[in-house]
């Protein structure tokens, strides 16, 4: 079981969305896939297609287009469940 949290922050404006769930997938495989899909992002001109993924204490900024099939399915599922986060 692997707990995954997906966060999306949009450029240009103040909007953060997040979704998380525990999935029946091997953690090491998920981490390897996320690492392979990692991208570097520019803070001032952040890419509209990148997402931040937390798996426990590990953090990746990924491009979903670079994910392998199984992990892509998990991430795409989370993308559909993104909900606004009100920062505190």
């Amino acid at each position, binding site marked *: 079981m692997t707990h995954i949290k997906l*966060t999306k*922050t*949009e*450029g*240009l*404006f*103040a*909007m*953060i*969305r*997040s979704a998380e769930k525990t999935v029946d997938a091997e953690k090491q495989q998920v981490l390897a896939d996320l690492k392979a899909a990692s*991208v*570097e*992002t*520019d*803070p*001032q*001109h*952040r*890419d*509209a*297609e*990148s997402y*931040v993924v937390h798996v426990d204490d590990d*953090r990746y*900024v990924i*491009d979903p*287009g*670079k994910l392998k099939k199984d992990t892509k399915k998990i991430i795409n599922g989370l993308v559909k469940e993104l*909900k*606004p986060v*009100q*920062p*505190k």
Partner: protein
Amino acid sequence: MCNRLNHLHCILPPYIADKLVDKGSEKNKQEALENKLMNHRLRSDRLFLAALSPHQQKMMAVSPKVAKKPKPIIEVYSCNNLRSLPGTKMSKTGTKFRDGDAQNVYDGGLQTWKFYYDLFKRNSIDDQGMAMIHSVHYGKRYNNAMWNGRQMLYGDGDKKVFDSFTKDIDIIGHELTHGVTQFTANLNYEFQSGALNESVSDIFGIMIKQRAMKLDVKKSDWLIGGNVMLGDQYALRSMKAPGTAFKNHPQWGDDPQPATMDGYLKMQNTEEDDWGGVHFNSGIPNFAFYVMAYNMGGFSWEKAGQIWYAALTKELTPSSDFAAAKTATIKQAGIIFGKASLEVKAVKAGWKAAKV
């Protein structure tokens, strides 16, 4: 040195170019390789430029074309829904384009150039006559617009939440002002200096819109992105009342921007926390500017704009925070209008209203 510089890498998602290099026809592979080379050069240029002082940036003035006499050089390209920059140059008859988005960015770019030159004798983004390059139709349903260090690019929007990002002159002015900030105060894009960077872009973006539409401080709606965000009741930000630009939005919920320091959001310096909330806490100096401009009355660019431009170009530094902006604007208001002037009082009232 700003630690953000370490992250200045990605302009285009590399996977698109990689796919073309790996799987395209021979012609596509060649084009893709050329694009990758161009992108690599762009990234290298930005890293190099970002590491320079504002004075050194002026000296370098990366200007594809430089006008001898101050006049705007505005070039418009279409990416044709791809991600290659700058794309195909778009033709015009006189100043008229057949493409509506091209016309929007041309007009917005011209208004922005006129704003800075007419009011401050600033010759383009770098004050060296830098060509203003705009690329429209960037990507497919791309929800963003940006200044990438050398040029502007605009997405068409997904047409569900966002319309074309060329539809608001304040957004065009906002993004081009990031370029002006880059060549002047070069505010670090994190925490308060980052929020100030965002706010400066909103402040000049709204003034560019107000001047183009001849709106005084009372007639302006003080909204950023009112046309880009679909739905008459929604905008990206409200400078008059931060936190009210959208409410119960089906995808975005409520506008979370604070208007005053007691609502300041202490966020982390990570991408998922908006680099310390730069798009969130910008509501505070935005509100301060609204109050001071409103108290001065008339057209915002005639007094408040003069003060903020002087502060941006003469006082602020990469690490300036809200308190530094307060000190800088009060000082410049005193220099321009006199220490006992109503303008100084208005500036102080603005910062007081924002509880800075």
